[in-house]
Every structure is written in structure tokens, then in C-alpha cells.
């Protein structure tokens, strides 16, 4: 398969590999895909007090296109509000990286990953608002398989 220069650059020099504290209240974690399908993406966002995504990290098990898609998404979401980040479309990712048709689903996974991370962050903030007085000890995300 022949890949675009941008894709190869993201594969060879992936941006923002790493892990944020998933138990932290300002971190949202998305874990999507399945090992049996050959692709698992973990994408995390850290949202600042101003409502902007100040950091994003990823780890991906998957093909080069999956790695590049998740790397690209972490770059794109930084500095955005979560509402803005939510509008990222897999087609934008696929277009930017010039993904071949059989690799489109890898970009779909990246879109799913950011959406899952946002949903997790929102669920956490909602809970925090619910119980403002009592100390919350359930900072982990119920919706996620890494429990």
C-alpha cells in the first residue's frame, strides 16, 4: 500500500503519545476498538479551567493509518473547546492523511475515540456538579472498558 507523506510523518513521528491520569477530574478518556479487530485506540483530553483542551494524549494498537489518525486528532483538538473538538469528522482526518479506501475505518475509530473522551469528560463534570458538597470518590469512568 502506498501512503501519503503526511501519514508517514505521523506514523514515524507520532505526536502526543502518552497517558494522562484517567482518575483526574479534568481528564476525559476514550477507549475504542477491539484487539480481535486489530485496532484499539486510547485517547485522552485534559480540559483547562477556561474550557479549552490544554493537553491530549493517545496510545494506539493498530495499523499505520490508525496510529497516524489518532496522532493527528490529538494535534487538532489541542486549544479547542470540547464542543469544537466534537465536530471533528472522520472524513476530515481521512482527507488530510489521504487514507486509501480500505483504511477509512481507521479514521472512523479516531473520531469515535475523541467523542468517547469528550463523553467521559462530560459525565465526570456532570457528576461533579451533582455532588458539589460531598467529596466524590468515583472519579473513574463507568462507561469505559478499562475499569
Amino acid at each position: 500500500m502506498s501512503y501519503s507523506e503526511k501519514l508517514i510523518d505521523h506514523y514515524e513521528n507520532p505526536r502526543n503519545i502518552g497517558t494522562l491520569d484517567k482518575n483526574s477530574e479534568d481528564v476525559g478518556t476514550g477507549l475504542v476498538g477491539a484487539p480481535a479487530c486489530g485496532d484499539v485506540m486510547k485517547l485522552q483530553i485534559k480540559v483547562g479551567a477556561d474550557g479549552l483542551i490544554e493537553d491530549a494524549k493517545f496510545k494506539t494498537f493498530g495499523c499505520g493509518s490508525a496510529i497516524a489518525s489518532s496522532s493527528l486528532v490529538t494535534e487538532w483538538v489541542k486549544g479547542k473547546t470540547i464542543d469544537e473538538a466534537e465536530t471533528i469528522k472522520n472524513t476530515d482526518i481521512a482527507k488530510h492523511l489521504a487514507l486509501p479506501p480500505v483504511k477509512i475505518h481507521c479514521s472512523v475509530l479516531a473520531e469515535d475515540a475523541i467523542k468517547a473522551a469528550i463523553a467521559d469528560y462530560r459525565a465526570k463534570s456532570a457528576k461533579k456538579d451533582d455532588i458539589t458538597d460531598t467529596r466524590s470518590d468515583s472519579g473513574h469512568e463507568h462507561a469505559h472498558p478499562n475499569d
Partner: protein
Amino acid sequence: MIFTSGATESNNLAIRGVAEFYKDRKNHVVTTMTEHKCVLDTCRHLEQSGFEVTYLPVQKNGLVDLEVLRNAITDRTVVVSIMAVNNEIGVIQPLEEIGKICREKKTFFHTDAAQAAGKIPLDVEKMNIDLMSISGHKIYGPKGIGALYVRRKPRVRLVPLIVGGGQERGFRSGTLPTPLCVGLGEAAEICAKEMDGEAKRLKKLQERMLKGLNDKLSDIVVNGDLEQRIPGNLNISFAYVEGESLMMGIKGLSVSSGSACTSASLEPSYVLRALGVEEDMAHTSLRIGLGRFTTEQEVDTAVDELVRHVNKLRAMSPLWEMAQEGIDIKSIEWAAH
């Protein structure tokens, strides 16, 4: 020996030819789930025209269970087609024992020896082989030429696929490409002369490679039996690292992967699946070939490259991270997608 265009044609001619010839008396074919596509597709074809085909499972090490084979053969079985050496995992089937069972049960024995010829000794008498396919380009000969051995005593009859001028004892009409035939013969002669020495040399390289990888990497698994295997093949799953992404990294090395992500169909290797390799591990597999022109220096370079990239990719693998944290990946309910 009947010259053909390659092992694909030889396999088609052997299986279809013998099944068609004896179809008044027999209607059953036995093969395995790990055969090359050209054998499996030939069998599917036969099924469509009314034959019954048994696709034998293989054991975890990739070898057929002889008792299972024995029980699968009936008095309606016309041919048993079992490959000598598997093209993905390099395992060598117990040919002599299979041949013995076939002779006892009075059924023909065909073997696809495309990956075996020139690499391991093949004795059609000792192994009771009635039909055997070989290919030129798998033994450093020219592409576009192969051959089918057809036993004369006791005689094996075939319906030809290609009819016409009656060349090749009527089994395969058409004028033969002399230069290719000579090339195949010459390639076979060189292989025969070098087989013993080459097998020893490759065994050392195979061991060197495996030791090099095992010394520097944890969680790697060899797929298929390591003993009953040609020394020129290693098929390894590098857990937690998807095969295509690994292939993208080790650019200087020419390998293939059983990962679905490398195939247009997005299906993982059916051979690994037949061995019972879990899908997540099939996704992490690489087939590494060592051959006549592979040097020790190249093996060392390959080990370094593989180690470097496996480590790099594991550092960015969420599954590796979970494994290090002691989380059992199988305990997680992954969303199907």
C-alpha cells in the same frame, strides 16, 4: 513429470483431474484447512459440481492428526491432498505416515510440495506419494513453470484440464517453453546439490534470529511447530503490536503479516485461525523467510530493526500498557465494531 505453468496449475490438475476421472466410483476428497488457496479453491469448485470435501482441522502446532485423517477416509475417498510444507508457518506434515495411511485405505495421495521441494528430501516411493506439485520460482528457478509428478506404477489417471495436441502424455497439451523447463531442471539440480549444507546453514540462521529476538523481547510466540519445520521459515506473533504497523517500520525487511490490516479483505490469516491462534495474536504476526542469499549479517540487522520497532510500537500500544499494569485484556468487554 508433467510440466505445467506452476504449482497452482499442478494442484488444479492433480485434484480436479483425479476426481473427475474416478467420479463414477468415488466422490470424496480429503484435504486440510491450512492448504494454499489454490487447493482450497479447487476443492470448493469440486463441491459445486457434486463432490464431497472434508477439510481436516490441524492441531495447535499446525500438523494433521493422523487418527483424524484415518477416520476421515472412506471407501468413496478418491484423493487425499495434504501439503508437504505450509507456506505461512513452514511446518512439515508427516508425509511418510500420511502416505502409508492412504495406501492402506486405497486412496491416492497428492501433496502440494511447492514450499518443500529443494528444501527437504522428498521420496515419492518411501512416502507413497501418487501426485506431487512443485513450482519453479519457489526453488530459485524461473516464474511461470512448475511440474506435477504423476505416478505410473500403480498408474494414476487424470482428466486433463487443457486438451489439444496431446503433449505431456496427454495430461497437458500445448508446446512447452523450453527455456523455462531447462531452468526448472537446473534449479532443481542446484537445490539437490546444496540441500544438506543449506539446511544446516539456515537452521543456524533461524536459531540465531530467534535467540536474538527472545533475548531482547518478551511476549513473542512462534506460530506452528518449531521442530517439524523448514529452517527457512519463522512465523512470530509480537504481542501487542499490530503487524502492518510493524511492517511499515521495518522498511528494509521484506516480510508478510497474518494481520487483517494488511489484506484488502480485512480478514486475518485463515492458517493461523486454523491453528487456534487468537485473533488478537494473529494481528501481531509476521512471516519471516530466510533463504539462499540471507547472510548472518542480515539476520543481525533484521533482529535489531525488529527489536527497535517492536519496542517503539509497544510504547504507544494501549494493550501493552494494560498488560504492564496487570490488566487481563481478555477480561475487558470490548465493543464490537
